[in-house]
């Protein structure tokens, strides 16, 4: 008799965990997209939680300290790590993305302090949503500057 009770209890816990996982996943899933994919999907992704990554174009960075509004444009970079490696590593990919003016770009608006690492050819990883106006409204902004940490050997020659 106690065996069935324990079994039932176990199943109940399992069901609760499965429910928690699936409902929470559904509620907070973020769709990881490249800028090309975002452009291709068009209006179908408006309002969804998105996580996109792109190369920051330095000339477009504008910051209004009064309203703490940060705007900049990012250019498409491939999302797949293997693809990035094949194209010569993250630093090279970011550089190519910024200099190639034919790439898809998207305007980003972020309200908050200007991150220390925001600069030309940084990789921006943003979560937020796409507005009706085609602007990406970021709630969270992460930056990676690979150049510094990828140069394998030192530059300056000093015996």
């Amino acid at each position, binding site marked *: 008799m106690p065996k069935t009770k324990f079994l039932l209890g176990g199943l109940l816990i399992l069901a*609760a965990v499965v429910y*928690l996982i699936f409902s929470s996943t559904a509620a907070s899933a*973020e769709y*990881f997209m490249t800028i090309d994919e975002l452009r291709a999907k068009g209006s179908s992704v408006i309002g969804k939680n998105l996580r996109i990554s792109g190369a920051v174009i330095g000339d477009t960075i504008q910051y209004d300290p009064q309203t*703490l509004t940060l705007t900049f444009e990012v250019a498409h970079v491939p999302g797949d790590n293997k693809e990035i490696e094949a194209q010569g590593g993250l630093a090279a990919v970011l550089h190519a993305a910024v200099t190639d003016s034919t790439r898809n770009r998207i305007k980003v608006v972020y309200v908050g*302090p200007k991150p220390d690492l925001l600069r030309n050819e940084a990789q921006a990883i943003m979560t937020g949503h796409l507005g009706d106006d085609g602007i990406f409204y970021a709630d969270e902004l992460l930056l990676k500057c690979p150049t*510094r940490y990828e140069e394998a050997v*030192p530059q300056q020659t000093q015996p």
Partner: protein
Amino acid sequence: MLPEFGFGTLFLAFLVAVYSVLAALIGERRRRPDLVESARRAQLLTWPLITLSAGTLVWLLVNNRFDVSFVYEVTSRSMPTYLKITAWWGGQAGSLVFWAWLMSAFASLVTLRKWDRDAEFLPWVILVTSITLAFFLGLVIFAENPFNRYWQTMSGDVVERMFRPAGSLPFFPQDGRGLNPLLRHPGMIVHPPLLYLGFVSFVIPYAFAMATLITGRTDDRWIHITRRWTLWAWLFLSLGLVFGGRWAYDVLGWGGYWGWDPVEIAAFMPWLTGTAFLHSVMIQEKRGMLKQWNMILIILTYDLVIFGTFLTRSGVLSSVHAFAQSAIGPAFFGFIGLTFVLSVALLLSRWTALRAEAEMKSMLSREALFLLNNLLFLSILIVCFWGVIFPLISELVTGQKVTVGPPFYERATAPLFAGMMALMAIAPLSAWGKSTWKTLGRAMWKPSVVALLVPIALWIGKMRNWAALIGFFLVALVTLVTLYEIWRAARARQKAQKETFPVALMRLFGRNRRRYGGYLVHISMMLMAIGILGIEIFQTETQGTIRLGQSLSLAGYEVRYDDIARFPAPDGREVTRAVVSVYRDDKYLGELHPRIDFYFDTQQTMTIPGQRSTLADDLYVLLVDWQPVSAEQATFKIYHNPLVNWLWLGALVFIAAILIAAWPQPEAEMVPVVVTSSGSRRARVGASD
């Protein structure tokens, strides 16, 4: 010469570790105790060898030997000496040496114990620890060598090699790149070493578990031997996590301490299985149950430790911890896969021998509640694991990469944490074997009524957040039930032994360290819970650009911008430091100095908050932006973090509690037996729970 010496000693250590694996294996198979003894001595030799190598590495770091690539990557001339030393574990290659050094130290400590009664375990413990050690040393030697140097070839290229390529000249960079500014913090002294200490100590119980499975000596001996190891491992790992949180709070500048970052989760997962293990071994000792389960938990913990080391150091995931990049992934996954499959195969081969000696009868018995607690820990583990691998799964299934962020973890784990707190309130009062609602109710009703006053008071005080009300109720309930239980036991002792109350209380703790130390751990967790509830639910923030003399206000505080200055600091920084005055109800409370540090060597800036901490709340002020052109105005961001200090306070209580629980105490079987003149024998039983 020195880099070669460091590499040479490391290579020797690797050979010695491999030898000790082989000697232990052959010695056991051929029944040659002399070979096993030789394996033991070989293992003892690895520590001095790795110490020499590590000492060399630290010497190179401290003395600016930038011709060594690792030194070039993690230090620079302007760094203070203590940071140059900590740079040892600031990069991947060095931190693997650090891991191996700790592994070797712990393996040596274990092999130095008296083995008379457990001689059959010895070769297998040596085997498991030496294989783990050899794996890490192998990684360092063949993939991530910290002693590689720079050489300039005839064609002018600079290459990185251990030994001088033909026709090349040594290349000596003028200055190093410097440690990532995020790591230039006193936290660097404690956070990574504690985490690694915790990781590595868990290898020891795993080694004994494997020895148990291989030898078929499936009694509780392995658990008795490793009980204290497990407690220390758990203390170190827990403190590593807490210090990491404190560090993040102090330097990352987002007013938080835990971001459900994949790397944080990687360190959290072995903590979950380790904590479950810590609880469920008690059931095995007391009731002879859950033996298979304990094996599963320790195997999971071991492989999650290796996985955690890999994630924190591989840079495969984008996170604040991903400083290192490398190609050691396949080796790690191979090792994890292999050890996991072998361990599980061993476990299955002994499955029937590990059957429970008794059956669980009552749903409210203490063993049933412990099992439930274990299931909750595992449930949180599953949530974490799901969150980490979900992007991979969704990409495989739908072709669309979908990630889950902190809201996922918060939502999915909050009810599980609440369930855990409820168990902490009930389980200590339930009896082994059989418990009923009636007996439980009798023990619980008084504290429950008192605890209910807390949410009622908060409700009257206009708190309407249900999660917070339930949370604070559970905190009060667990604290009261635990204190009440300690008080009752001390009172009983006071009456029975005719002692004063303080003496009775002290002796109660002394005689039953693990139980009452454990209760104190529960209370420390509740203190931490107060801090977590406070900052997670009631954090507020504001931001704005203001002129000199103007103020921002938040949660009853006024923060006035008084002054700003920019000046160079001796360790290669340019500091921009603002002075703000804090007022509450027009009363002056003090000055804060939020600042921005710009590091010349890495060209990076760090935003360091000014903090005012009290038990009630923290005021956390960030200087966000300031340009000399517009010197008059600066941008600030302010967080109000209620109760967060209780988190750190809880951590201090936690340390004390574990010290009580883990402090050496004579084991029951080694207790002196006092023979009195009349010939009657009295044995003092020390460790009982």
